[in-house]
């Protein structure tokens, strides 16, 4: 929304999100108080758990990796004006693509296997997202509804495939066979001893590359330009001679493929096998990550890190403060989404006002102050 008096850019991309996150934490803190714990101490423990030592930090990075992929998936679709709530199911199906290839090429060195696994995961997950894309493009079925349905269908389908087809007879739990150690995506601890025993793996580097890649894709390619045109104004895209149907399907497929990369981090990396229900909410967190990050890769990277901290720090917290359970983390997550995503305008007015008064006060002595970043 264009406002009559645009705020400096840094306020928009930095100050407001930080204020909103702080607000979310304050409310979360009140809930912590209600159950009789000290919120300040809780934050300290969380930060320590997330950054304080190599082991915790490794986990923080591991979670961050997943959230970057899930967040980028939502962000890409969002630029095309599509709301992909199906990251959860897409990542799940991506796991199938990953494991099938990883088991098939078992014994192949990871450096050779990884591209194959990635392509397969991307194809599977991309296809799972392509279906709602196709239905939206050709039949007008709303992606919000169809992606939700596809999540449910993925759960059923994967449950059958894992427990009835992939599960080797000699294991109890519902999971596939293990990937050969040489084939499995290697842990970063191989190179960085500090991260010993943590699941953070090469996928983290992949995620950082994906951030750059998506940035280039959206703002520096012709396809990205077309995508954004459609996202903002479908009629204008038609006017410009772009095919909305094609763009929708492609955008969804790319979005799904990104979600599928969660499988590289988990199935082919951290877990080394496909586990029933392995996505465990990562796809949904991606929604929060994308919106908090304003669908911009830098924002997505930062908010993925924030959620990584929340997850790992929350785990530390659960160790140290038994009254604070995993649900508390979900609650804080919800508050972050609410304040940074849906209520982001709440603090905007006061901030605008503050700037306006500050400006008018400064206007006379320093007239050059109006320059904007």
């Amino acid at each position: 929304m264009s406002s009559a008096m645009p705020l400096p850019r840094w306020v928009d991309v930095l100050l407001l999100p930080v204020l909103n996150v702080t607000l979310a934490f304050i409310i979360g803190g009140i809930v912590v108080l209600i159950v009789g714990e000290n919120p300040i101490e809780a934050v300290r423990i969380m930060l320590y758990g997330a950054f304080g030592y190599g082991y915790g930090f490794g986990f923080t990075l591991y979670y961050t990796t997943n959230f970057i992929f899930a967040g980028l998936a939502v962000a890409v679709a969002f630029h095309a004006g599509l709301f992909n709530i199906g990251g959860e199911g897409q990542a799940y199906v991506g796991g199938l693509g990953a494991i099938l290839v990883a088991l098939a090429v078992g014994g192949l060195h990871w450096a050779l296997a990884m591209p194959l696994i990635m392509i397969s995961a991307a194809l599977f997950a991309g296809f799972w997202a392509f279906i709602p894309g196709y239905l939206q493009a050709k039949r007008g079925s709303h992606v919000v509804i169809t992606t939700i349905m596809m999540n449910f269908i993925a759960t059923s389908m994967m449950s059958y495939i894992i427990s009835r087809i992939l599960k080797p007879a000699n294991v109890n739990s519902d999971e596939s066979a293990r990937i050969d150690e040489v084939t499995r995506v290697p842990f970063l601890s191989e190179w960085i001893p500090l991260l010993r025993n943590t699941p953070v793996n090469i996928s983290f580097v992949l995620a950082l590359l994906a951030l750059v890649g998506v940035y280039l894709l959206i703002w520096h390619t012709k396809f990205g330009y077309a995508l954004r045109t459609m996202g903002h104004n479908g009629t204008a895209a038609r006017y410009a001679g772009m095919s909305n149907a094609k763009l929708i399907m492609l955008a969804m497929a790319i979005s799904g493929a990104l979600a599928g990369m969660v499988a590289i981090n988990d199935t082919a990396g951290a877990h080394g096998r496909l586990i029933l229900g392995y996505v465990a909410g990562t796809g949904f967190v991606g929604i929060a990550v994308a919106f908090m990050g304003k669908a911009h890769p830098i924002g997505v990277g930062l908010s993925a890190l924030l959620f990584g901290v929340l997850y790992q720090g929350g785990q530390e917290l659960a160790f140290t403060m038994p009254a604070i359970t995993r649900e508390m983390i979900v609650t804080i997550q919800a508050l972050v989404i609410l304040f940074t995503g849906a209520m982001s305008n709440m603090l905007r007015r006061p901030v605008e006002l503050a700037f306006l008064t500050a400006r008018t006060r400064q206007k006379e002595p320093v007239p050059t102050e109006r320059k904007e970043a």
Partner: protein
Amino acid sequence: MDTTPDHAQRPSSAAGASLAIELKKINKSFGSVHANRDIDLAVRRGTVHGIVGENGAGKSTLMSILYGFYHADSGEIVVGGKPVTIHNSSDALALGIGMVHQHFMLVDNFTVLENVILGAEDSALLKPSVDKARRELQRLASDYGLNVPVDALIEDLSVGQQQRVEILKALYRGADILILDEPTGVLTPAEADHLFEVLKTLRDEGKTIILITHKLREIMAITDMVSVMRQGQMVETLETAKTNPEQLAELMVGRRVLLRVEKDEAKPGDVLLDVTDLVVADDMGTERLKGVTLSVRAGEILGVAGVAGNGQSELLEALAGMRASKSGTIRLNGEDVTAHHPDSAATLRRKGLAHVPEDRLRMGLVTNFYEWENSILGYHDYDKYGSGLMLDVKAARAEAQRHIEKFDIRPANADLKTANFSGGNQQKIVLAREMERDPDVLIVGQPTRGVDIGAIEFIHNQIIKMRDAGKAILLVSVELDEIRSLSDRIVVLFDGEVVGEADPATADEGELGLLMAGVKSDTTPKREATT
């Protein structure tokens, strides 16, 4: 038609006539934009009071304040001699003030009746209100000649009828003072005439009317008084009888404006755009073009006149390759380019066709984009803006800068969101983009809709320049004046068919008006004719 102002009979300077409305020192800012600055305005009861001004002068803002839609930052409103505070539109309605907005405030899938009673229901149950409204509308219809099918859905009505619904809404609520914001932008001359008849009747009954318009002709024809605004300030209030269009234009813009288009004889060349028997359906599958045949030559402007909704939009979209045709052929430079596929807009562009769409906001621009991004809309995949998959942002910016300089787009900042440009400048962004491609054929829809006279002058000159450079131009406009002054030939579109062709030099307005209303020389009107 009767546009003779009848000030003669009316004592225009009756000092004794009471004031219906008085605005004193009204101020209103939107952020850093000071839209209304110390505005004083007095409107006498029983008059038609015109307000003119450039785009963004603050006319709509002022009226929205009077109607309770906006709150003034400071100032006083006096209605019927009493100072009042208007918190919202219902306060305004209670004071007898009604407003017909530039963009109609109707619910499209409601019936006329439902729209009329909305907000003015008598009881929690609808039935009694509906019955009452039905009777009341009948009375209003016969009193003022405001006929509308009361049970029809708004979306099925013509724009002219929709506007009547808006007026009926105001009258149904007992409005004494009626504000109309650019009411004739979308009307045919006949419809406009009819509107003015209604307004006169209302005035003669003692109602007060405030009329905002960009068309000085209308000001001269119907108003008793006229106020001129510029850049948020009230410049002058004059008696219409004692002024003339030239003076008003100068007051508005602050400089002399050429109100006529000056152009040389056309020198038509080869046929560049050739359309035969084109049949096109809209999204719902209804045939909107029923076999249209026309052609445009190099170096000429073909004007397509017609009431909005008679197939112009479909014609433009079909020619631009955005809409598949059911049958018929379109030839561009002799090549058959009949679009069977809705994505061929890009292909046609490459073959030398440029398209300035009717609706710049909905179609021609992505308002959320920066200006430079819009300057390559439709052309982004040209090699000029990057080889292969990549987009060369620098090249696009440079392009935008060229447009800004050549078309005097203001503010001259390619990194500003397009939404923050005024309507006239937005139009220039689109025109610049399409004209700078040096196309062979240019199709233009409503190039000056809602644009002020300064910008109109500029845009018209650009179009003439294109023609003189040997381009074939197809111009679609509901503004008959515009069609007449720009075109070298005119065809009239009615109900999806070309019902007549005219020479702008000789055709008179009445004749064109009849054609536009569907009156071919011998047939009876198909759509609603003048009543």
